[in-house]
């Protein structure tokens, strides 16, 4: 039984076009011409309890609009959304207590006060008794590796610390469905890793369903078994990450290290050279020819080390976005 059901979901916005310059501004003021823009166009999917789903697509593809329809912030133009048995746009308290939305670029923590004050407000808002609240704060702080930061004004925290505190505030009511919009935005690699680990642990511990958008593919590859790719408001791909790689990239990435300096032009017959160094090279080789080509390479060159991997997911995705599928 899926916990999130979406069918034929669409959202259209009316946007006023404005010509540049002063004349355009006056014209815009007196008579506006509206164009209807389809932000999301009849998309559909089901998500089961406990799944972590990555939601990817270029800027302006409709990811955030979809997330906001799922959590009831904006009303769909047409279509059906059902989240744990509720219609999100009605924003029933029972539904709101079951979900959370974390946005990497907006914050709910009170800027001038320590996070602990915001947490107390949230505890009151969600009706969590004081004792229970401080227990949960301790537990989540441990998972997030937050300590004295909780008692420092938010404006004095680093971006990473702030994001962790933000997560704590968003999860205090133990929601079972998490909508995360770019939760690792702007974080350094270490903080990204921490957030990722935390999300994984939270998912395991509470069987929470997580929908995640991110521009850092590492977030997606390490957390999500299933991904949804959306482009120009339409659902483009829905399935396991591994299958996407196979489907859209028929090549594999081969990294070779040589014992001696070689003439790289000789390698052109084997595949497409992506990167070359004095003693090493990265080649894209078609999956079907792989065994044969590797064999030849080993015979013709003195090779110290060899590694075969899928090409980086970023490249595949950018290929999909630009519709230049091999």
């Amino acid at each position, binding site marked *: 039984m899926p916990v999130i059901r979406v069918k034929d979901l669409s959202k259209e*916005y009316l946007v006023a076009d404005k010509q540049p310059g002063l004349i355009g501004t006056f014209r815009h003021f007196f008579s506006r011409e509206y164009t209807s823009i389809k932000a999301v166009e009849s998309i559909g999917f089901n998500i089961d309890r406990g799944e972590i789903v990555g939601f990817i697509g270029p800027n302006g593809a409709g990811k*955030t609009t979809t997330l*906001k329809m799922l*959590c*009831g*912030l*904006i*009303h769909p133009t047409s279509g059906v959304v059902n989240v744990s048995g509720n219609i999100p746009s009605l*924003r029933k*308290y029972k539904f*709101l*207590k079951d*979900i*959370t*939305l974390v*946005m*990497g*670029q*907006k*914050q*709910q923590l*009170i800027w*001038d*006060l320590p996070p602990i*004050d*915001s947490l*107390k*407000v949230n*505890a*009151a*808002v*969600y*009706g969590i008794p004081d004792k229970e609240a401080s227990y949960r704060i301790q537990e989540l702080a441990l998972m997030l590796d937050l300590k004295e930061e909780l008692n420092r*004004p938010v404006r004095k925290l680093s971006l990473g610390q702030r994001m962790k505190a933000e997560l704590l505030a968003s999860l205090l009511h133990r929601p079972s469905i998490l909508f995360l*919009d*770019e939760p690792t935005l702007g974080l350094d690699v270490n903080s990204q890793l921490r957030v990722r680990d935390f999300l994984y642990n939270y998912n395991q511990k509470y069987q929470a369903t997580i929908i995640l958008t991110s521009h850092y593919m590492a977030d997606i590859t390490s957390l999500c078994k299933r991904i949804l790719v959306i482009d120009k408001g339409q659902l483009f791909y829905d399935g396991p990450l591994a299958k996407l790689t196979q489907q859209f990239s028929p090549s594999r990435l081969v990294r070779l290290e040589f014992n001696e300096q070689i003439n790289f032009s000789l390698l052109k017959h084997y595949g497409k050279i992506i990167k070359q160094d004095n003693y090493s090279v990265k080649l894209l080789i078609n999956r079907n020819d792989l065994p044969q080509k590797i064999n030849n390479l080993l015979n013709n060159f003195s090779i110290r080390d060899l590694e075969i991997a899928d090409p980086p997911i970023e490249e595949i995705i950018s290929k999909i976005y630009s519709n230049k599928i091999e």
Partner: protein
Amino acid sequence: MLRINIILKYLRILFQFWSTSLSIELEYKLNLFVEILSTIGNLAGSLFVLSMFYTADNTLGGWPWHSSLIILGFYTLIESFTISFLQPNLSRIVKQVQNGTLDFVLLKPVNSQLWLSFRTFSPYGLPSLIVGIILIYIGLVKGNYYVNELSLIISFVMFICGLIILYSLWFLIASTSIWFVKIWNANEVLRSVLISGRYPISAYPLALRPILTFLLPVAFLTTVPAQALLGIAPFSLMMVGVTIAIVFFVFSINFWKYALKFYTSASS
């Protein structure tokens, strides 16, 4: 039983809301000091202006000095409510629509109108509260007015109606920011309208009085509660006041619900 639980829940929320907003004010010590100075200055100014009026002529629109003090007292009480709640909260709605942080409010299991209207409490309205009560008291004592419990209660009810009318108007204008995002300082418009409530409605030209009573119900903010306190408020006028308050309030609730259907949430 269930009702009591809900009331307790909201009391706890309000306590958290207001204690955090006090802590925010205390974060900036110098600002606190400056604000207190400016509040005192403001009050002294408005007293001075009123005293000037009465040195020239001893009545204002048929109201003697002492009963005008009562009107000024009610005006100061309204000011106190404005400074403590309306101004800091309702002007924030516009900002929250603009930068999309309204999202967080809408996703909380609380009445969003209540949250937006009472999220912060500014302590700078407190001096006006005290001065307002003192002004009314002085007006009553100096004017030798006798006030019984009943007129005290009626006056209080009428004053609450006045607050509700002002609040609803202000909230209505603020909620149009869902469509217009940036609304021309609604804040300022209402404030200037409000200032006309400093003086008895009868002090204004005859042509303006119906406008100040019915279109912009300023009369109900100060004049009617003062009249009720002195026991000279026409019953029909009070009934009109109560009706306007209820209608405005109910309308503001429904208008907000309607407006939210059009909320598009600032893009990330």
